[in-house]
């Protein structure tokens, strides 16, 4: 069976004047349905670049990217938008809710762009909100909710369109540790229910909640395997393994 996500020999090269920055330097990653993968690495290692490509927000300089068996690495703006709408659910560090829309309208957005009729849209958005435990808050504005609640709204929004992959970029970065753990637990629950989750983080203590870890350094994959292998947490030049031990 084909892989859900398949990055083959992906390069992303930024040209800054005379120098070329290899943000991704020949990356191969595959993710199958039902996996929970954490992409980790130090600052500048290429995590966000990888996430943008996996999220169809950007295209690689070279190499190929197949999502659900379809080559999306050469698509134009609007084609990518359609893929994002149908196959991907984003969870951002800054929640990225639209402040002027209420919770329900925010969650409805991906369905709106998918052309779902209004009755069904409302129904699906409400059930997504119920899944994250925010029933009854649908008329609030984002500013009337706590950070954790806002992040749950953004998870509901990611779920509403029933995507194939949930992409979370530092989803706990703006939350206190307790709320952060709740959000992580929620991602684990989603994964247990069958959703595919790709989590991006620089924090080992978060990465270990995933089933599998892909570690990047200078745009290259330096580890790809079980999250519980001690090797997965070795950060070259750092002692972060000990921190994890305290958890």
């Amino acid at each position: 069976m084909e892989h859900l996500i398949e990055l083959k020999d992906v390069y992303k090269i930024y040209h800054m004047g005379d120098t070329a920055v290899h943000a991704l330097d020949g990356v191969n990653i595959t993710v199958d349905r039902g996996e929970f993968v954490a992409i980790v690495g130090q600052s500048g290692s290429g995590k966000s670049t990888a996430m943008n490509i996996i999220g169809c927000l950007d295209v690689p300089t070279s190499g190929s990217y197949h999502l659900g068996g379809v080559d999306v690495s050469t698509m134009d703006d609007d084609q990518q938008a359609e893929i994002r709408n149908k196959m991907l659910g984003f969870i951002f560090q800054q929640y990225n809710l639209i402040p002027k829309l209420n919770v329900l309208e925010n969650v409805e957005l991906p369905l709106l762009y998918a052309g779902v009729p209004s009755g069904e849209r409302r129904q699906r958005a409400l059930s997504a909100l119920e899944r994250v435990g925010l029933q009854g808050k649908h008329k609030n504005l984002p500013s009337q909710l706590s950070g954790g609640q806002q992040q749950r709204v953004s998870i509901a929004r990611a779920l509403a369109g029933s995507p194939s992959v949930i992409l979370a970029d530092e989803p706990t970065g703006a939350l206190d540790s307790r709320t952060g753990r709740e959000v992580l637990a929620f991602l684990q629950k989603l994964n247990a229910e069958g959703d595919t989750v790709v989590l991006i983080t620089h924090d080992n203590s978060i990465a270990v909640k995933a089933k599998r870890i892909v570690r990047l350094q200078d745009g290259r994959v330096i580890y790809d395997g079980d999250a519980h292998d001690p090797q997965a947490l070795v950060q070259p030049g750092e002692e972060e393994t000990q921190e994890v031990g305290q958890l």
Partner: protein
Amino acid sequence: MNFSQSFRLAVKSLMTSKMRALLTMLGIIIGVAAVIVITSLGNGMQKMMNDQFDQLGANLIQVQIWGRGEGSRTIEPEDMYALAEKYPQYISGVSPYVNMYQTPTIRKGTDEYKRTSVYGVSEAFYDASRNQTITGESLVQGRFLSYVDVERYQNVCVIGDYLNQELFQGGGLGKTLTIGGTPYQVIGLLEQKADSTEGSGDDVIFLPYGNALRLNASATVSLYLFTSTNKDASAAAKGVIENRLFKTFQSSDYYMVMSSAEMMDAMNTMMDTMMVVLVAIAAISLLVGGIGIMNIMLVSVTERTREIGIRKSLGGKRRDIRSQFIIEAGTTSAIGGVLGIGLGVLMAQAAGALVRGLMSSSGGGEFNAIPGVDSVAIAFGVSVAIGIAFGYLPANKAAKLNPIDALRYD
């Protein structure tokens, strides 16, 4: 697809910053209001003039004759009567219409009137079956000039309501007044036509045209009034009159035939042209308003870069983003248009009342500044169109934003 949400969002964001919204819409409001005021006043003016023409007789044809100076080529009133008899299908009435070179003094005892309009006409000037003269007066008492009065230069006259009230306290029939020193007997009284003041349409005297010519010390009638059977026949009537005059004078330089219908058309064309010019000037304000909207939309796109990025990441395509901002611009300008229409109607009413006040003293027709349904509809349509046209550039800018850059924007 997401029209209703875009529309609601637009209204919401306008409501949250009312001052900014008002300033944005100001150009549109002023432009639309100006267009409404101009068209309302223009329509009112046009309607009033048409009413006045109708009152005067839309079927009226004036024939001015200068003559050739040589005795052999002249037009007599009989020639004109004969013409009317020959073409009854076009011409329903004709009469000489002698104006005074110098307004004669009207006197009764020691009372003197120097502003009275005195006209010399024939018995054909009055149509007894309709109780109406060619220029629209009606009799209330007595009779009009007869064939015998005209033929024998009788010193009789028909007077307007003003003179009847002023000189005779309403009981003028059979009484005598002097016109330029000659005593005349009043044989008919006219119905009040205007506001019965000095110099108005009620300060008027009709006497036999021969007598009027004598007062003028001239021999020939230089002005005739014809009536056509109806408005549509007026062109044909004008044609036969011109042919007849050409037969006598062998040149079109010695007379002029003007029909009211024609003059009305000419006047209406002129008014229309003037209105188009004025509206075009007012439209410049609409252009400025459009630029104002474009400006604020560009600001809005920048302010909402992150929102655009979010929408794109969730699957918003270029056309979704574009239509969202275009709807927003269109909504802004449409609301501006509605406000402008409201303001314009109010201002037109005020201006109309002002003009009415100025004109009542001179006894003109009824003036109403009415905004036409079509001009309101066009004003609204144009404002929406302006919003869409000037919103397109900012909307397109938003649509083309790169989602990654937009998401990262603070």
